[in-house]
Structure formats: C-alpha cells, structure tokens
C-alpha cells in the first residue's frame, strides 16, 4: 500500500517515517500542482491538507485522508501525534474493503417529459433543440396545462398565448419530439439510464376534424369546467387542432356523429404503448388545493364563493360582472389543518385577479384580505399599482364567510385599524394554495416533504447528482410563476442533457449496504433513511445504491450491525480507534459538513486545542455508533465529543436529531457500565465556530 505525503511547499515534514515494509512512503512538494498516478485498485493513504480539498484532487480514488496541515502543523502539535494519526489511517485503510465503485450505464438517450404546461413545453423545446429525443406526455386532450385555462399571465396580465403558442408551434414539427395527448402513465420500471414506461392513451373520440364546430351546436351535455361552461365535445385552440370528447361526461347520444362531416368514433378503444427512456422530467405543475375543506369560507356551499381560476375565467368571459369583491389570500395556506406552507404565488395571483376586474370594471369595489402581502423583488411595483387603482387592503385572516340578506359577509379583524369588520360582497374569491400532482409523484416513488418533492429529490442540494434520473421543472418543484418556470425548465434541460451525454455514470461516494448474514429484517433502517433508499425486496432488506447518499444513519441505528456504511464499518473504525487512542486522549467525531470545518478554521485563526485531541471526520453526527464510543472509553480515552450541525441544518435532513435521541440512551448505558456521563458530549458546532470548538475541547480536557 502507498502513503502519499505532501510537504505543502515546506510547511509539512516528518522525520523518520516507517510503517513497515508493506507501506511505500512517497513525499511530494505540492500535491495541488504535481500529477500523481494512482492505481484505483491499490490501497492508499494521502496526507497533507484538508480532505475536502484532496477529495476533489483525486475524485476517482478511494483513499484514506490525514489532515496534517490543520491538525498538526498549523496547530503546532508534535510529529509524534502526526505519526499516530498516520498509523491509525493506515490501519483503517488495511482493515476494510473500502469503497466499491458504482457504475450506472446510461443506455437510453431519450427523455420523457410529463406535462405540457408552460414548463413542460419549454423544457421539451430546450431538449429537442439540444438534439435529445423527447416524448411529451399530456394527460388532457390538449397541450397547454394550467396556463391555457387562464385569461392572462401572472402577475401583470400579459396574454398567455404569446408565451405558449410560439412554444407549441416550434415543437410540433420538430423531428426529435413525439407528443402524446390523453396520455396517462400506467406503470414504470427500471432505473436511471434505462426506464421502461407503459403509457395508456385514452380515446379522444374525434379521429378526423376540420374544426367546423357543428358538433358543439348539437351536443346536449353542458359541463362546468373551472368556472366556464362548455360542451362534452370541445376544443381549446392549442394543439392538436382537432376537437375532443370528454368521455367522463359524454352520454354517447350520437348527435355529434350525425352532423360531423369528418370522423367521430364514440367507441374508440384505449391504447397501450411502451417507451424506453434514460431520464424522466416531471413538469406536472400545480393543482388547486381543495377549498371545500376550508369549511368556514363556504366554497362549494355558497354560489358566490369562487377560486381564483373560476373567477378569472368568468370575468374574462363577461359572465360575471361583480359590484363588490372580497379576495381572501391564504385560504387554507400557512395553516396546520390544511397546507402548512406558503404557496408563494397566491398573493400575486390575488392581485392579478384584482387588476383584471379593475381593467374591465373600474367602478367595482375590491377588498384584498391578507395576513401578510408577500411581494418580493419587482412585484413591489405591481403592489403599488394596485393601491393606486384604489384596491382596499385589509390585514388579517378572515374568520368566516356567512350569508345574510342575500349577500355574502366576510368577517375579519383588520390589524391596521384594530377594528372588527363585516364586509358585504356579491363575490368572494379564495386565493388558495397549491399542491403537486400527487398521483405522478407516487407512481415515481418520489418522497415528499409537506406536499412537494424534498430538497433531495428536486436536486437543490448542490453537490449531489440527480440520483434517479428523475428531474423536476417549474411548479412540480414548488408553485412558481411563468417567468420562474421558464428559467427552471432551462436549468432542468441542462442537467438532463448533461446526464444523457455520459455513457456510464460512475461514483466512488461511500454508500450503505446490508450484510445479509446478520440482518433479521427488523426494518429499523427503513424508517431512518431520509431518502427512501431502503426497501424490502423478496423479504430481504435492500439498499438502493443509486439512491443512498451515504449519511450512515441506518448503519448506526442497526441493532444487528448488518447495515454498514462503506469506509465506516466496525472493523475500520475500531482499528482507527485502537491505533490512535492513548490513555487520557479526547476523541472527537466531527461531522464533515460543520464541526470538522471548525477544526480548519481553528488552525487558520491561531486558536488552540489540546495535543491529546484526536479528530475523526464522519459523514454525520447521526452516523456515530455507541459501540465505538464505548470502545474508546474502554481504551482509556477520557472524553468523547460528537460534533454535528445545528437543529434543522443537517445536510441529511434529520441525522443530527438521531444523534440527539441516541445521546440519552448512550448516557444511560455509560452509567450502567460505571462510566461518568460527563465524559461524553454531543454538541452542535457550526462550520466557522472554531472558538466554540476549542472552548469545548479545553473544557473536556480539564476534567
């Protein structure tokens, strides 16, 4: 095995290094600049500066790192300690199998885009112009999504058609695209790079069409479609340019067939088709939260209470001419009983509707009730415009809408004036929040937080790859306006093209695995995984290597030590502890995202902690096993520190909370073993909190 050391331009030197004949020792002056060839099969320890830098210098290599610069030379600790740390790292490297290289072939070079709203269309355009074969799937009979149901775009009110129609016309003749309307995903198999999607194409009924519109005149079925009445046979003038039958309401009376000069088939069968794809893009947009659940506002009970979409369509149609309108923001939002989150766009959706009314009917009185008007960035100008138009803003959450003497009454305490108001109105508009298309998310096995995909799933954790090859664009991530959706769709296209260019996706990131000999399928690990990476397959526990992010929480929670994290197995850690720990030492297990960085900061800031502190870099405070701590204490360590991220700031969502819950149990165990509880400490240490870290270590040394 090889020990590669860096002098760091003269900062680091250790005389008389010798770890036996099987360890080759090599010194370099500056590893940042010098090229070192390393056989990926060979075991190697690299010692020099911080591992977070060196990991980047040797991305393909599974090495053990020793931070001589920060932990020894800048800290002015002895070269004897340096030798101990090197010996421990060598022992750890020898003890374990290290990291297995994972590779995922990207077999299919195509993408499935689910949803053809403005996000899906723009994404498809970006992908096809990048030369990627794209399948665009729309559940409804026409392209356009929510945007095509609107009158105007969010929030200023430009017509939706000037954004959507050019996108559609640029797509329909592109040879890289295949469009499926009335399409529903039936099933999905495979993993990143090679998915098989089964698609159900529901019947459209209209096979050939010249848009004469005779069918609509004879159709006897009227349907309320988001505030507007249409027939069971209809068109919305996007694409395809032919009519469609809504078979949920069609009575199959046959009147349309009689007048149609082209071809209608009321008994058309659904079709099933298979698509192979390397990646999936979810552009399913948003759905309106079911406002009938917000009982106190009377939606569904009182005819004058509408949601924003219904209101917009009725105003645009001219079917509704209101005299007095109350718009209620946060209807069911920021509410634990409904949607606990802020849907972000609804405040300005409310203002968009207010402006729509003012444009048409300047005399109409409008009240907007909001707990807080959330106007960020340039939206502030629009907010000012609305005030200038004479809209009355009320601060407060209305308690209820009741009906009295034929008009609707909104009861609200106005926080600006401290008065309890009853506002009478003919129309009440509820600006409710949004939920994603849960059906699609479930089908894809996407873990959600609140309602929307977790940070992990939608790839917001910068340094991680997209593990499943499933991408999210626009409001499928979180409710977004059109401009934001377009930006997001292009970012999404970039990531997809990036993935599909590779033939094989490789990773040397440590992940967890299960030693089946010890596993009793108790399922403890399943509940601990923040990423849904652990599942039961054929009655055995399986950890999906493409989904595991390597936090190690499952491994430390496993009662049988069956679930293990690569490079962090019991043999490896106990070898490290054995070699590094002297009686009277303090062992610090520090999270690599926070507390470990504080050790580097300490070195740069000339802060000092005692020589007898030995530091092990761990993926997460939640990955530290109680057995390791007990082992170190038995070897004579006088104190153990586990340092992690502050509550809610864990890189792996909840690893630090795991560490916290374990603390109590560990301390009880220590009492049983006759060990003083004060010898163990769990602390939250931020990445720049060197002073705090040094103070804690000093304190522990005083005992």
């Amino acid at each position, binding site marked *: 095995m090889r020990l590669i050391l860096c002098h760091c331009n003269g900062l680091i030197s250790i005389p008389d290094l010798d770890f036996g004949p099987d360890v080759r020792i090599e010194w370099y002056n500056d590893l940042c600049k010098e090229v070192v060839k390393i056989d990926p099969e060979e075991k190697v320890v690299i010692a020099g500066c911080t591992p977070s830098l060196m990991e980047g210098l040797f991305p393909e290599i599974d090495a053990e790192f020793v931070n001589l610069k920060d932990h020894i030379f800048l800290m002015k600790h002895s070269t004897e300690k340096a030798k101990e740390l090197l010996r421990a790292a060598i022992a750890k490297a020898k003890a374990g199998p290290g990291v297995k290289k994972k590779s995922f072939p990207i077999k299919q070079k195509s993408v499935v885009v689910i949803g053809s709203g403005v996000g899906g269309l723009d994404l498809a355009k970006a992908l096809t112009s990048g030369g990627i074969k794209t399948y665009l799937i729309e559940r409804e009979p026409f392209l356009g999504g929510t945007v095509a149901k609107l009158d105007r775009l969010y929030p200023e009110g430009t017509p939706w058609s000037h954004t959507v129609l050019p996108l559609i016309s640029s797509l329909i003749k592109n040879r890289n695209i295949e469009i499926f309307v009335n399409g529903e995903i039936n099933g999905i198999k495979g993993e990143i790079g090679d998915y098989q999607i089964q698609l159900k194409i529901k019947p459209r009924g209209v096979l050939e069409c010249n848009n004469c519109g005779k069918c609509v005149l004879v159709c006897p079925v009227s349907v309320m479609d988001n505030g507007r009445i249409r027939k069971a046979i209809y068109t919305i003038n996007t694409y395809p340019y032919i009519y469609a039958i809504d078979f949920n309401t069609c009575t199959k009376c046959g009147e349309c067939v009689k007048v149609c000069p082209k071809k209608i088939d009321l008994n058309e069968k659904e079709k099933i088709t298979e698509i192979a794809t390397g990646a999936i893009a979810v552009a399913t947009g948003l759905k309106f939260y079911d406002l009938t659940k917000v009982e*106190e506002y009377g939606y569904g009970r009182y005819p004058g209470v509408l949601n924003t979409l219904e209101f917009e369509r009725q105003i645009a149609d001219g079917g509704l001419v209101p005299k007095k309108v109350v718009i209620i923001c946060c209807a069911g939002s920021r509410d634990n009983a409904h949607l606990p989150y802020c849907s972000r766009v609804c405040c300005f959706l409310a203002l968009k509707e207010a402006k729509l009314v003012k444009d048409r009917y300047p005399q109409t009185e409008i009240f907007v009730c909001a707990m807080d008007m959330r106007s960020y960035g340039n939206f502030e100008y629009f907010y000012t415009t609305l005030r200038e138009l004479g809209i009355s803003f009320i601060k407060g959450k209305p308690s209820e809408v*009741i*009906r009295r003497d034929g008009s609707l009454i909104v009861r609200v305490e106005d926080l600006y004036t401290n008065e309890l108001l009853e506002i009478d109105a003919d129309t009440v508009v509820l600006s409710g929040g949004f939920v994603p298309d849960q059906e699609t998310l479930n089908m894809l096995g996407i873990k959600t937080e609140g309602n929307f995909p977790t940070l992990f799933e939608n790839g917001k954790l910068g340094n991680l790859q997209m593990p499943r090859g499933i991408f999210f664009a626009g409001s499928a991530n979180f409710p977004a306006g059109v401009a934001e959706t377009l930006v997001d769709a292009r970012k999404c296209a970039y990531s997809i093209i990036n993935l599909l260019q590779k033939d094989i996706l490789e990773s040397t990131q440590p992940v967890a695995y299960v030693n089946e000999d010890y596993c009793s399928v108790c399922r403890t690990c399943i509940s601990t995984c923040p990423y849904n990476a652990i599942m039961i397959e054929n009655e055995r526990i399986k950890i999906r290597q493409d989904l595991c992010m390597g936090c190690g929480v499952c491994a430390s929670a496993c009662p049988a030590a069956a679930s293990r994290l690569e490079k962090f197995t019991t043999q490896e850690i106990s070898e490290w502890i054995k070699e590094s720990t002297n009686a009277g030492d303090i062992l610090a297990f520090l999270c690599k995202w926070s507390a470990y960085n504080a050790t580097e900061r300490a070195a740069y800031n000339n802060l000092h902690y005692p020589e007898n502190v030995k530091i092990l870099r761990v993926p997460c405070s939640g990955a530290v096993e109680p057995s390791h701590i007990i082992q170190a204490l038995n070897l004579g360590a006088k104190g153990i520190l586990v340092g992690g991220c502050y509550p809610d700031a864990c890189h792996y969502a909840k690893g630090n909370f795991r560490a916290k819950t374990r603390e109590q149990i560990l301390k009880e165990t220590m009492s049983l073993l006759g060990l003083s509880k004060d010898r163990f400490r769990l602390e939250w240490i931020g990445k720049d909190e060197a002073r705090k870290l040094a103070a804690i270590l000093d304190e522990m040394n005083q005992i």
Partner: protein
Amino acid sequence: MKRYALFLGCTVPVRAQHYELATRNVAKELGIEFVDLKEGSCCGFPLKALDTETSLLMAARNVGLASKLGLDVVTLCNSCTAMLSDAQLKLKENEFHRKFTELGFAYPNEIKVRHFVRILYEDIGVENLKKAIKKPLKNLRIISHYGCHYLRPSYLHAFDNVENPRTLDELVGLTGATVIEYQEKKLCCGGSVLGIDEELALKMANQKLLMARDHNADGMISICPFCTVMYEDNQRKVEAKFNTTYNLPVLYYPQLLGLGLGLTPDACGLKFNRIKPDSIISKL
C-alpha cells in the same frame, strides 16, 4: 340492551330534573340502561380557570368511577362532556396518572365519554329512531342550539362537523319537526361569562333569541343545562334589557324526542320548563 354509566354533574340533578326525567324515560323507551354514578361530583369545569390540574383531577375521578364499572360514560351537559373527555385523554399521560393514583383513584378499564345526544346519534342511529317515532311533531318549527362543548374543541370530540354541524338538526328532523336552517349555529350562549359580566352574557344570549324570532321558531332545542340557563332561565332578563318579548320555549332534546316517541308531556317533564311550552303542547 345498551348499558352506560350516567353522569349527571352539578346542574342537572338540582336545577334541571325535567331534563333528567325526560332522558331516563326516553332511554327506557329505546332500551338503553343507565347505571347511576351516585358518587359523581362536579365535572371540574368551574375550576378550570382557577387551576386546570385540579379540575382535570376532579374530572378524572368521575371517569374513574365509570371505568371501575367498565361502562362508557353518558353525560347530559356539554361542558361535562368536554371536561371528562379531556381527563380521559389526560389519564394516558404518566405524570398525571401518577398523581391520580396517588390520590387513591383508579382507571382500570379504557372507556369513552360521550354526550347522550351523541349516543342517540351513533349507537341508536337516525334510522332506528325514525322508526320509533309514534307521534310525528309535524306542526313545529324548531331551531336547534348545539352549544360550544358538544363539538368543540374538535381534538377532544372528533365528531360531526365543527364549522357546519348536522347531527342535532338530523335528530330534530327525525321527530317530524321542521328544522330551521340558519347561519352561525355555533354561536356561544354566553353562560361562561355570566358570573363575570352579566350584561355581556345577556347580549350573547340575545343574539340567538333574535335569530329564533326572525325564523318564527316555535321552540329552541338545547342539549346543555348551561345554555338553557342563558336562553330560558334568563330569557325574562334578556327581554327586560332589550325591551322586547320572546316568550320562546326552550326544550331539551330528550323532551322533544320523548313527545315524538309518544310519551306524555308530563313524562317529558314539560311542566317544569320555566318558559311554559303551552304553545308547543297545543300544536301536538
């Protein structure tokens, strides 16, 4: 035969015997057996503002009495229902349970606490009650008052729909009476503030009495002695204060149901109502 432990509380056995009488007679008709909690005390609600723990311990003691019998508790007062339900949940907390047993009380069997009206709705059922009606009360227009603690807080009761309640209206409707649909069913009678600010309490009571008159109600249905104190016992005071006359009979639901089941007005305790329900009796 369905058996329950009957908890009366403070007000019913002393001030609302007609409610108790009608309840017992209706129960007999419907095959419901009551086992009396003779040692039942005040539910504890009056002391809640003073010290919640004391009030919960009192409530828990009453729950414990029924638990020893292994019977679910039936209550006749909304506030007793909420208080005892709260205690029943609280008994699952270790610290509270420890104090409870330290006082020498026990809670050996897991039991439920429900209002008599809820028992009628859930355990007998609207359909069965409808079948049992012998004299449909066709000519009556009835406004029903739910009262606060029959449904609220919903984390204790988890019953009906707090914003738009239906159960009592359904129960009134099945007697053949016309149910008055009105806004703000959930208004509070004001009983809790009577001791602090009488004028305010009377104002609160007046709101619903006005609604009853606006809807030409023959009578109001109450299911809580607390609410009846406000709408019936204090009706004359409300009238004097607001210079008006309501003369609105206020019946407990079992009294109305009893009439529908064919019981005599005496068996329903109607002669003890403070606002004489003569107008109702004459319409039967």
